[in-house]
């Protein structure tokens, strides 16, 4: 009998154990029927890495290995669920640090094989999107989701929660990457998003008219030209011997990014006649972005959803939520699945 033979019919409750350790959190959860979280255990290594000013993957993967079994035990105990009750086991398989991904993926494969239950491989980025659906189960479908971070900028359409269609993505830099690079260029520090946002608060966003990429009818994004425009502006002003107002520059740059993101999103809202709009990912924390999108959604009578802070950090419950919908689609992974550090949506 194959390890994925044990599939329940859909009227019964489905219990999924989900594991996540793609960066510096070791996490396990038990979800009932997708969005009902019975336990959500996260053991953070943030303090361990903070003293070095960044994650050291070699340390992280060793630590994940140490922490994972106790974290799984605690997740099962808090949920009041035994291994035998599980219907499937899920693990993030990318994107992330390969050492960490291998730890949970190998554990999940072992559990799948030992219990003869399906193995589900989940994309970490999808997890962050589904964190919204855990926090707001009442979100109406269909919906548009803009997911933006240091690694990706994707515009997605969800007919229901079982799958999504990619409408557009960045053709060069991710939005968060543009923030980081410009912040570094201006000497404002890392991470760039919060640094630029802080400087922008005291600046005039209309001070400099930076270009917005025109990609015609597509829903794609591009931030590379904007980055060059900012650098050229600074060099030109320097050559003329003019003083540069960093706050004005940060505000004008941020406005150009926000405007590009919001314009494409609104274009998709018009075209797809959705019931809700969701933003997720690190850049979704930008207050100006939320403000502009919420404002432009008013004329469409749509509300903007974004995840609460506690679900923005890495956790396994969001992985379990995605896994449930993959379970319904019988989208199972073979035991030969490998970690993919640069997995895309």
């Amino acid at each position: 009998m194959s390890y994925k033979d044990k599939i329940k019919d859909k009227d019964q409750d489905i219990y999924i154990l989900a594991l996540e350790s793609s960066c510096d959190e070791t996490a396990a959860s038990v979800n009932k029927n997708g969005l009902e979280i019975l336990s959500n255990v996260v053991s953070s290594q943030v303090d361990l890495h903070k003293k070095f000013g960044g994650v050291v993957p070699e340390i992280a993967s060793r630590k994940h290995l140490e922490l994972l079994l106790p974290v799984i035990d605690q997740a099962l105990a808090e949920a009041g669920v035994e291994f035998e009750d599980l219907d499937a086991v899920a693990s993030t398989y990318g994107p992330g640090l390969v050492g960490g991904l291998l730890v949970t993926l190998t554990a999940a494969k072992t559990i799948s094989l030992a219990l003869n239950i399906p193995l589900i491989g989940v994309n970490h980025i999808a997890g962050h999107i589904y964190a919204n659906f855990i926090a707001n189960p009442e979100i109406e479908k269909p919906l548009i989701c803009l997911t933006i971070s240091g690694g990706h900028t994707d515009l997605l359409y969800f007919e229901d929660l079982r799958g999504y269609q990619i409408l557009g993505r960045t053709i060069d830099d991710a939005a968060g990457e543009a923030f980081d690079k410009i912040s570094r260029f201006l000497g404002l520090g890392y991470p760039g998003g919060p640094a630029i946002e802080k400087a922008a608060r005291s600046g005039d966003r209309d001070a400099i008219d930076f270009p917005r990429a025109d990609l015609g009818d597509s829903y794609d994004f591009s931030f590379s030209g904007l980055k060059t425009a900012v650098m050229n502006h600074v060099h030109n002003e320097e050559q003329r011997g003019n003083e540069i107002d960093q706050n004005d520059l940060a505000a004008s740059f941020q406005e150009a990014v926000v405007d590009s993101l919001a314009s494409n999103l609104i274009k998709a809202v018009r075209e797809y006649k959705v019931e809700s709009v969701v933003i997720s990912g690190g850049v979704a924390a930008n207050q100006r972005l939320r403000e502009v999108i919420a404002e432009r959604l008013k004329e469409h009578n749509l509300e903007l959803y974004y995840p609460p802070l506690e679900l923005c950090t890495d956790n396994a419950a969001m992985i379990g939520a995605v896994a449930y919908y993959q379970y319904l689609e019988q989208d199972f992974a073979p035991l030969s699945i490998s970690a993919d550090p640069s997995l895309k949506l």
Partner: protein
Amino acid sequence: MDSSYSIITESPAETKDFGRKLAELIENPALILLKGDLGTGKTLIIKAAVSALGYQGDVTSPTFNLVQEYQAEIEIIHMDLYRLDSSDELLEIGFKDYLNRDAVIFIEWPELALPLIPADFIFINLDKISAEQRRITVRGEGEQSRLLIERLNKEC
């Protein structure tokens, strides 16, 4: 498990003394990361250490050429990653090959090197307390940092 060593130096001369002591207590090969804002004394410590390791020539921060090598009794490699944008650029300069060398390696502005290093390194953090005073904290991971911290703590 979370062992560390911390000292406050009252002047650049004392910060230099720390660099000399560091050179005496480490063993070849070593991987030493130095983190601290501009002007906190990273290069000063490396200068003193390199000279104590037996190299007589000039030592300056290789901000432009990224890597400098000094040949003494042992081989010494000095990197400054300030001007790099990503870890990928580090791979392009052959960072992994440097790590495999039988050498004492000093890295200034080490943030971008973190994804590429083994779990065995010495991490020195420099904080500015006043114009002259610095807090120097030694941490790390693995055997070489454990040994160094043990020896530094015994010294005092």
